[in-house]
């Protein structure tokens, strides 16, 4: 039962630092704490020095207290071992609410933790509110993003995973007092699972891109993706693709946008030669601005586009590229 007055945010990190979803969770957490009058705690597991990891940033972003379980056994993230450490921590501190980012790791870790605590979990939330009794109202999409459900957890702690890029990052307040507690690992090994190797090839993360230029079945050859890559680079963005091109062996699935793949929420999404199967739409329909280029005027993608052009992408994209280049030189567009 609800006994303590704190809300816990789990912050995922790796060698590059803290995943930005943690800062978004802190913003939401702060808002909920103000409503319920509780303290905002943050939990990190890792093996790096506190300075290198810049844990103070979590205080600056609003955490009242940061707990860091530091041990070399956390060099590589593995859910079962993390669970073995997070569960006793939660039992000790008794937060009424625990929030995880809905990254791959968070999606795998949170249900394991929730099950161990025999409490409810609401996954992939896009918003949270709190009712008068301090109960969390968790809002999450279902049916491939087609419906929204409001869900209440009947047990404590109330655990939820929250999608990346749903909230603004918490504002920085450097005047805030840093409060960091470093803890010993509760358990240093989990026998059932061992990480043999970590392949650091996947530093590319399309979900972080501000602009995504995507290609679909309209792209005929692997080389032709270069053209989209160029447009993406000119706009400071990244190259995405629909599932067909991944299946066709043109590019790695790290670039795949869709319901099975990466869900992106960039400022601008440019879909080139993508017809707009529901599977793909589910991965990009929340983009701020959507531009579609397709030679088939009946392609469903146009229904989701702010601007569309019916034409051959092999003519349109080079024109757009030279348009940007010339526009910059000549100081004039159009």
């Amino acid at each position, binding site marked *: 039962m609800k006994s303590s007055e704190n809300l816990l945010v789990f912050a995922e990190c790796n060698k590059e630092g803290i995943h930005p979803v943690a800062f978004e969770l802190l913003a939401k957490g702060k808002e909920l704490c103000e409503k319920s009058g509780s303290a905002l705690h943050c939990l990190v597991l890792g093996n790096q020095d506190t300075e290198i990891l810049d844990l103070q940033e979590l205080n600056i972003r609003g955490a009242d207290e940061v707990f860091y379980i530091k041990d070399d056994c956390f060099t590589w993230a593995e859910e079962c071992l993390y669970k073995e450490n997070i569960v006793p921590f939660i039992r000790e501190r008794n937060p009424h609410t625990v929030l995880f980012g809905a990254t791959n790791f968070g999606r795998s870790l949170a249900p394991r933790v929730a099950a161990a605590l025999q409490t409810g979990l609401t996954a992939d939330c896009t918003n949270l509110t709190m009712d008068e009794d301090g109960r969390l109202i968790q809002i999450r999409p279902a049916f491939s993003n087609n419906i929204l459900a409001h869900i209440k957890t009947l047990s404590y702690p109330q655990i939820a995973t929250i999608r990346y890029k749903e909230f603004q990052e918490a504002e920085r307040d450097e005047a805030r007092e840093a409060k960091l507690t470093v803890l010993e690992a509760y358990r240093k090994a989990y026998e059932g699972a061992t990480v043999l190797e970590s392949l650091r090839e996947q530093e590319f993360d399309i979900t972080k891109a501000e602009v995504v230029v995507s290609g679909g*079945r309209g792209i*005929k050859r692997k080389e032709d993706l270069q053209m989209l890559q160029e447009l993406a680079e000119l706009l400071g963005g990244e190259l995405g693709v629909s*599932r*067909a*091109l*991944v*299946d*066709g*062996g043109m590019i790695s699935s790290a670039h795949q946008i869709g319901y099975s793949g990466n869900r992106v929420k960039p400022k601008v999404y440019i879909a080139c030669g993508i017809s707009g199967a529901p599977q793909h739409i589910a991965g990009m329909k929340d983009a701020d601005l959507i531009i579609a280029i397709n030679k088939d005027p009946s392609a469903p993608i146009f229904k989701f586009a702010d601007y569309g052009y019916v034409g051959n992408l092999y003519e349109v994209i080079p024109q757009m590229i030279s348009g940007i280049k010339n526009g910059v030189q000549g100081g004039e567009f159009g």
Partner: protein
Amino acid sequence: MKDADVKNLTDIVGADWIITDLEQKSAYFYDEIERALRPVANEQSIVVKPKNTEELSAIMAYAYEQEIPVVIRGGGTGLCGGATPVVESLILSMERFKKIIQIDEDNMMAELEAGVTLRELLDELEGHKGIAFPVHPGDEGAQIGGMVTTNAGGARAVRHGIMRNHIKGLEVVLPDGEVLKLGGRLLKDNAGYSLMNLLTGSEGTLAAITKVILRLYPEDKYSATLAIAFADMDQASAAVLEIIKSGVSPLAVEYQDKKLNLETAAYLGLHWPLDEGEADLMIILSERSEAALYLACEQIEAICRKHQAVKAVYAGTKKEQAELLMIRSGSYEIIQELIAHNLDMAVPPARVPEFMRGLRKLAEKYGTRTNIVAHIADGNVHNDILLEDGKIPAFTPDLLKEMYELCFQLGGTITGEHGVGKLRLADLKLQKNNRELELMKQIKKIFDPKGILNPGTVVQIDGCNKN
């Protein structure tokens, strides 16, 4: 076109519905025929878009009086150059004939204006549960009037036959502007010569079609697509013949070269399930009950096993079926830019293996290859002559002639479903004897004495050929 003509036509349809600007009207010059095979359009032609039968009749009467050629344009999805004006013409676009007059559920008939597209008809039928229209030429942008005038076929002809089988009534405008009503919502009508059947497949050379009455059918709710690989073509063909004979009535039976299946699948990022065997069949089933569907599967499976099928798989979900169909229909996009000539011959179904072997041998003889896809149960084979270094090879006419000769030897026809159009005008003489051609010309002259309708299509007569 003379200024006076433009003015008079504008008076009929209004200024918004006539196009004289070259850039705008050029979108109305061609159908879907390969670029290399396109007849050359006469760029002086102009586009007129009447809104109803009265306007169309007035335009026709004017053209008749002034002896201006008229090319009627539907959805532009044809494959034999039929819609291209080769002499200075009025292009009569049917795009405003959009009314679905009635879906008559009691008589199971649909009455439509000619410019309604197949897609629009199918969308409308969605709202009438349990009713369907079976003919599907592949491109749903095709207009019903166009499907009538070209007697469209398509993959589903195996069960339902071609367009002709489903046309029950027509409203047409003759070249002199007179409106004629043929047939009606009748299942039996034996009164005299069937002009309706004569106009079906006349490729816009006898009259303009303005309204159509089509027969509708109960919808089959349960479908599956089977993909089956055989060791060779003879086994595949024997199995198809036996399946048809057994009383199973598939919606479609499609053959496509394995090379095309695999390449198209790779291009689309899909998976073609048959890696073994030499001859791949795709059979689409559609039945009113689940039990009937599985019974058909059982019969087909047994027949295919008897003919030593090497692999036989079942696609049951919509998505799985759609993916197989995408591989079958997406192949054209892969070969499109490689084609010098695309053929549409048909032979008696039992001669198909012999025919395919012969076609391959001929291609080999000329040091090239030919891609083959076929509506195999109908005996309708599409094969091609390939470009060499991006150019039409010099041997093309000879190879084409030899392919036709092979087709005739087997009792075949030069076009199973695409029609003569302008592309096969000369070839038709190879197939038909003089008397038959002469009768066709006489008929053309009776309907269109001044020869204003679609000159240079199907038959060539003297008329207002202002070339």
